[in-house]
Structures are given as C-alpha cells and as structure tokens.
C-alpha cells in the first residue's frame, strides 16, 4: 500500500534508528570494561524485551515467565558447547526451535482450554518455575551447580562465538538492532496488524475471518524462540549458567521491564526502557552492597515501575515522542491490560 504521507516520517524513523545504533557502536569502541559489560546486558535485554514486547505489545498475550524460554536457549547452547564442543550457532538454532515448540505447546494447551489473559500469564510463571526446578535436579545439565564455559582465550572466534567483552558487546548490539528493526518490520506486516487486531478485540477479529487461535499460538512461539536466542548469548556472556539465575523469576522481570518502562508495542521502547532500568538496577545493587542494604535494587525496580505506570502509562518512549513531536507515532496505541491498572 502506498502511503506518501508516511514516507517522510518513515525515513526519519529508520534514519534515527541507524544513528542510535551507530552511536552505540562508537560507544562500544571507546568505553571501559565496566561500561561495556553493563551495556552488553542492556542490549541483550533490549533484544529479549523486544521478543516479549512482540507477544504482549503487539499480540496481546501476557507472559511473566519468559525466563523459561531464556533458560531453554541458554541450556541448549551450553550443553552442546560444553559437553560436545558444538558451535553455539547450532545451539542458538536448536534452542530457538525447542523454545518455539515449548511456547507453541504451552499456548496451544492454554488457549485450547480457554486459559487466557492473566491466567495464561500465571501459567507461564508456573511453567518457568517448573523448568527451573527440573533443571536444578537434572544432573546431566549440571543440576544446581550449573554449567561453566571454558574461560575465553581472548582470541576472537566468530565461528565459536568466543571473544572478549567487546566482542560480546557487538554481538549484543547486533541482536538489539535486529530486534528493533524486526519489531518494526513485523508490526507493519500482515501479521502485525492481524495481531494488533486480535489484541484489541478478539471476537471482532474472528468475525472478520482471522484465525485468532492459530495466530496467538504463532506469536507466543515466535516470542519464545527469539527469547531463547537472547538467552543463549546471555549464557555465553555470563560464562556460566545456573537454573536459579537463568530461569529465575528475576530474569522474567528483567525481560519485561524494558518494554514496560520504555513503551509497550513500540520498536524503540524496549531499548529506551532497558537503558533506563538496567543500569539503575545495577547501580542500586552496588549501592545496596556498599550500604549493607541487600535488595535495594529490587526496591528501585519496584519504584520505577510504579512511577512509570503512574506518570507515563504509555512508557518513556511514547511520552518522549509526544513531548518533542519529533517522530509521528505509528498506529499502535495503548495496551488495554495496562490501562486498567491505571484507571
């Protein structure tokens, strides 16, 4: 479809995106090790936040258990690489396939039996917790002791996805860029508007001939598969994975905080939100350690969430856009689930 009125702002959007990522690449070339390692985490959670965002922000399906998929990806890469020396590329692919399948089964069973909305979200938590406990008791996968990657030799090896911190920074940057661009492309595609339609009004979409059941399973599956790719890289970056950390509730929260704080259903929201929330989380963690106040970082997370929901219910990014009027917001709008909290 031709939409001449949109083309100018389109160019601006893609140009702005390219500029942001170019700037981040420069930052990666200049910064010290601490900044690099922190931004690597930010960018990985941007990517995973984007996959979560696809599911809720566009598809209308809430997950509070994305750690399940993150963990599956991390374990797929780690088991293949550590036990059999297989390249992480294969692990990432396998992890995505398994997580996509698990996500599809979970969604199929839930929606088949009319478990929807917040009940589906509870089910995702249960599934993640179940998997965490299962992996904790699974000796082959390292059990509670986890799995450790060999310390990197320092030499960059793209085929084995090994390298120094800067190397992983650029891997994460590439993923984040793919996540942002991919969300933008998907939300403009046929799937994009069908998913937003079923998010807005499931019955109306069905009445127009949309196979909403199939599309819901599809969006959950794609979200799960992409989250697993992020998880696989996260495991490599951290050098070790443990069920409690890679499949824990904290990961599920870290995944969703970016899009919720930054702006649901938008392409840039998760990046902006992760940039704001994750460094704060780390800083408060360090401050809490220094002051002997463990848990200060969680309190900070809670405070940020409350403030955002209270004052910027659309998230930071859409509010910024509105404030500066720099970029016309695409037809996306707010998410009903979160609006109810506000009202």
């Amino acid at each position, binding site marked *: *479809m031709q939409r001449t009125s949109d083309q100018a702002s389109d160019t601006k959007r893609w140009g702005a995106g390219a500029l942001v990522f170019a700037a981040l690449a420069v930052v990666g070339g200049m910064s010290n090790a601490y900044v690099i390692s922190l931004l690597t985490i930010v960018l990985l959670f941007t990517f995973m936040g984007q996959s979560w965002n696809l599911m809720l922000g566009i598809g209308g399906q809430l997950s509070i258990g994305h750690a399940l998929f993150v963990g599956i990806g991390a374990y797929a890469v780690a088991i293949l690489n550590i036990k059999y020396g297989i390249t992480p590329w294969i692990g990432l692919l396998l992890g995505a396939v398994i997580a996509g399948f698990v996500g599809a089964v979970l969604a199929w069973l839930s929606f088949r039996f009319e478990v929807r909305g917040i009940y589906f979200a509870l089910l995702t938590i249960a599934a993640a917790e179940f998997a965490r406990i299962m992996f904790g008791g699974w000796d082959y996968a390292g059990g509670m002791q986890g799995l450790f990657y060999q310390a990197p030799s320092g030499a960059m090896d793209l085929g084995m996805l090994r390298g120094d911190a800067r190397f992983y920074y650029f891997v994460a940057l590439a993923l984040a860029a793919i996540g942002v661009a991919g969300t933008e492309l998907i939300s403009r595609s046929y799937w994009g508007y069908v998913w937003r*339609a079923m*998010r*807005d009004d499931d*019955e*109306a979409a069905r*009445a127009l001939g949309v196979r909403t059941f199939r599309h819901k399973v599809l969006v959950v599956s794609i979200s799960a598969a992409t989250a697993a790719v992020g998880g696989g890289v996260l495991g490599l970056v951290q050098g070790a994975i443990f069920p409690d950390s890679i499949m824990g509730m904290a990961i599920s929260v870290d995944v969703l905080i970016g899009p919720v704080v930054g702006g649901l259903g938008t392409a840039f929201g998760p990046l902006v939100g992760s940039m704001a929330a994750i460094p704060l989380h780390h800083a408060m963690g360090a401050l809490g350690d220094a002051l002997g106040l463990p848990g200060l970082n969680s309190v900070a997370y809670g405070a940020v969430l409350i403030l955002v929901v209270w004052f910027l219910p659309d998230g930071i990014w859409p509010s910024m856009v509105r404030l500066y009027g720099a970029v016309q917001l695409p037809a*996306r709008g707010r998410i009903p689930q979160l609006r109810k909290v506000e009202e």
Partner: protein
Amino acid sequence: MPDDALLAIDDLCVAYDGSNALNGVSLRIGKGELICVVGANGAGKTSLIRSIAGIVPSSGGSVRINGVDISRRPPWDICEMGIAQVAEGRQIFGALSVEDNLLIGGSLKRARHDRANTLDSVYQLFGRLRERRDQLAGTLSGGEQQMLAIGRAIMSRPEIVMFDEPSIGLSPALTDVMFGVVKSLNEQGITVLLVEQNVAKSLALSSRGYVLENGSVVLHGSSRDLLENPDVQRAYLGL
C-alpha cells in the same frame, strides 16, 4: 421462498448457559434480496447473526449457504464462503489505523487477490475514510466508525452482509445516510440481512421481513404487509 435460497436457516437454536436465545428460527434469503429481522431488545436478533457467523455455536437446526451446511463451521470458513457481518457496536480496532482496519477485512483468501481495487472502491464509497486512512480508528466519530465497519465488511468481497443495528447510536440524519448505504450496497448486488430495532425504517427499506420475539419468528411476510399488520403497528410502530 423457493428452496434454492442463498441462505437457508431451519430450526436454528442457540442456548447460552442453558437458557435459549433462539428457539427454532427458520428463514430464507434469496440472492440479491434485502430482508430485515426486527424485534425488541433481547428478542435474539444479535444471537441470530452471531450464530450464522459461527461466533456462537448453535445447539440445533441448520444454516445452509447455497445448500452447504455451515452450522458447525468455524467463523473463518464462514467468512470465506462470503458471509460478512457489520457487528453491533461496530467493533472496530481502535488502536489500528483506518486503513489497517480495512486491510484486515480484506485478508481473506476470497478477497486478497483484488484487495487494492476493493480498497479503492471502499474509499470511493466513503471519501471520509480515505481522508483519515492513517488516523487511529478509535479517534473517528460514531458515524465514521460505522462507515469503517461497513467498509471493512465490503473488503471481504461478500455475497451476503449481515448488519446488526447499523443505526444504533447514530443521529436520525446519519441513520438515513446509513440506510442509504445499505440500500445502495444491495443495489450493487450484495444480499443483505438487516437486523434492526428501527422497525419502520427497516421495513420501508426491505422487501420482506421477519419479526422476532423471545427467540422465535412470530410473523413474516412482505414488508408492506408487515407495515399494515395491526399487531406490528401496535407493538413496534406505536400506532
């Protein structure tokens, strides 16, 4: 009507939680007809449309289009067979642009290949929608939303369009505009099932009518006869 009706409904029953919304409704629509189903609130008008569309399951009876029973088919199959609906309350997607709303209507297999042309003809019919194509549908006025809902149905290249109270919430002037649109769609060859509370106007528009009360058809016949029927006049026309 003869038995080669385009849409033939026999003894259709719909029940919600044990209570019957439709108790054996039968009706016929011939190709190219414009018929109306009138009745008060709760008479089962919306249940009839939702059941034909496959949104609510029927508990008995049959719905046949061109002789094929569709009463157990899912909604998307029924849409593919050329039955579109303009739902009560319009059910537009408020957070999507006007054009995206229309494109969803046109994403059926039967309509996809010719979507750009259909879109163009919808924009010709409703110039206002073309002006507002990039606007969020939720920001349209009530009348514009009704146009959008109708345009979205046209996008699926339907044989039959079912209208569920297209006049609801509209001013009398806009109601006349809407009924004019319904009439002109029918003149372009689309078969119309019009469900309305506005008995006088819909009987004036249609060739035949059915009166629904408590989930059953209590009267049917040519619209002229119904308009002159003393029971209809007393119950619905306030004469």
